[in-house]
């Protein structure tokens, strides 16, 4: 029963510092407390370079915290868990593999027999609408299509925890809206918990159950907003609802201040 009640992710007073190339210590995340419940979709917004991505790498196990604890499903993170999916900001598909082979990569790495991996990969490719593109190489696809390959490659592993680091930021506005809808559809069936880092407020409200606003770096949680818009949502429609606009205004007044701080700091650095 315990496994049902423990939160999917818990960060307790977590800090992460890096050694910069010039030898100084740069604190990316400081005293971060954050809880993500099971099946919850949490969006994280914050000013540029505040340490949002670092938070994700801590949860994924790619990096270890300098201080504090990171718990996934009640267990401290040690290395990369097999229940984690990660969608990166940049293209992270293998350019020398075909689309199908890219999606098969995860199951194959995890020792799933070839035939079964192929079948599961085909299924997810169909679901993201790339069924007829399975023999193409990534360079033959558009940016949006490559992103969908990345989504399929992530979902095929049945992650319980989905970490997304500004996954759609490189796409144009229309494609981004389509991808957001598709993500909601794919996610709806899985019951996975999602942490979605973005600096697009509209995107965060349209997608999430909860939006976490981070302070200017080093990142800590500034405020948490519950998004009480009903599901299922369509990104383009939900955007027009009065409640959406209301939330947007509240969020922006909270985030705007941090953005200003970051910008003033940037100006000071330049001066």
């Amino acid at each position, binding site marked *: 029963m315990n496994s049902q009640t423990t939160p999917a992710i818990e960060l307790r007073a977590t800090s992460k510092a890096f050694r910069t190339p010039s030898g100084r210590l740069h604190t990316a995340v400081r005293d971060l407390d954050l809880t993500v419940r099971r099946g919850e979709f949490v969006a994280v917004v914050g000013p540029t370079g505040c340490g949002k991505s670092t938070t994700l790498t801590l949860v994924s196990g790619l990096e270890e915290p300098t201080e504090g604890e990171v718990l996934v499903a009640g267990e401290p993170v040690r290395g990369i868990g*097999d229940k984690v999916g990660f969608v990166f900001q*940049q293209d992270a598909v293998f350019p*020398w*593999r075909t689309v199908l082979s890219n999606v098969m990569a995860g199951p194959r*790495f995890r020792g799933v027999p070839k035939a079964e991996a192929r079948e599961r990969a085909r299924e997810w490719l169909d679901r993201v609408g790339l069924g007829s593109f399975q023999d193409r*190489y990534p360079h033959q696809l558009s940016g949006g299509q490559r992103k969908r390959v990345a989504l399929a490659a992530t979902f095929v592993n049945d992650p319980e925890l989905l970490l997304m680091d500004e996954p759609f930021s490189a796409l144009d506005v229309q494609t981004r809206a389509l991808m957001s809808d598709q993500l909601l559809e794919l996610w709806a069936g899985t019951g996975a918990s999602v942490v979605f880092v973005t600096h697009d407020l509209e995107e965060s409200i349209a997608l999430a159950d909860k939006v976490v606003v981070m302070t200017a770096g080093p990142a800590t949680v500034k405020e948490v907003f519950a998004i009480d818009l009903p599901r299922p949502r369509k990104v383009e429609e939900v955007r027009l609802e009065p409640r959406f606009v209301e939330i947007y205004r509240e969020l922006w007044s909270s985030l705007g201040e941090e953005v200003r701080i970051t910008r003033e700091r940037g100006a000071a650095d330049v001066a």
Partner: protein
Amino acid sequence: MSPETIAAPAAAEEHKSPGTERTQARERAARNRRLLVYSTRVVLFVAVVGLWEVLARTAVIDPFNFSMPSKIWDQIRQWALNGTPQGPLWEQIWYTLYEALLGWVLGVFGGVVLGIALGRIRFLADVVGPYIKVLNALPRIVLAPIFLIWFGLGPASKVASAVVLVFFPVFFNAFQGAREVDRNLVDNSRILGASNRQVTLHVVIPSATSWIFTSLHVSFGFALIGAIVGEYIGATKGLGLLVSASQGTFNAAGVYAAMVILAVVALLAEGLLAFLEKRLFRWKPVESGTAR
């Protein structure tokens, strides 16, 4: 057929014609340009070879030292038909090619394996790194006489000099390739569940191949140099031996003839490599400006 049906396609064609005319004109211009390039190439070749021939025949340059194209051609023909003093010509070519090829394969294999291993295992790179730098700084061609002492007059000493020449460029490229793998790809594959070994096999090696391949082109040339120099210093067979034997009998035409044969062999090998590369890199986008 009614007149309208005949008229319709005619009208369509008329409508299309200005465009197609322009395309045709462009194609013609491109064809003419290609023709011009090829013909100028031929003219240049004929001019240089002809000038050489004329100057040598009129004794402006000493034909004994500089030989002349017709004599070189005669020499090649004579070697091909009657064999060289060291045995049939194809046997000399085969020996050199065999030594170069074997040295190349061994050198490439060693370079790739060690390069990737050092690129992946930091500890190893830190320990062995300085030694490799020292060995690389050494002009490795001076090792050829030592190899001759160690391995004798047979092919082994030539293979060894080819190996040391080939190893380093391949090693450094493989090392660099393994180091410069896209962090994102490595992170992504680890998230997808890849073990360290799988990261090496499925991410590091494929992304290092384009680095390695650039070095393969250069290094085959090096392998030939290694084999030839080895033969030149002391051998019982091979094109390098032909060079040194011709030199020993003051036969300038023989030296040139061996050079021509070598150039042809090297070009053929290069062509084969380019063909292989094309097959292996199907996943790569066709880049503009890489027309070879």
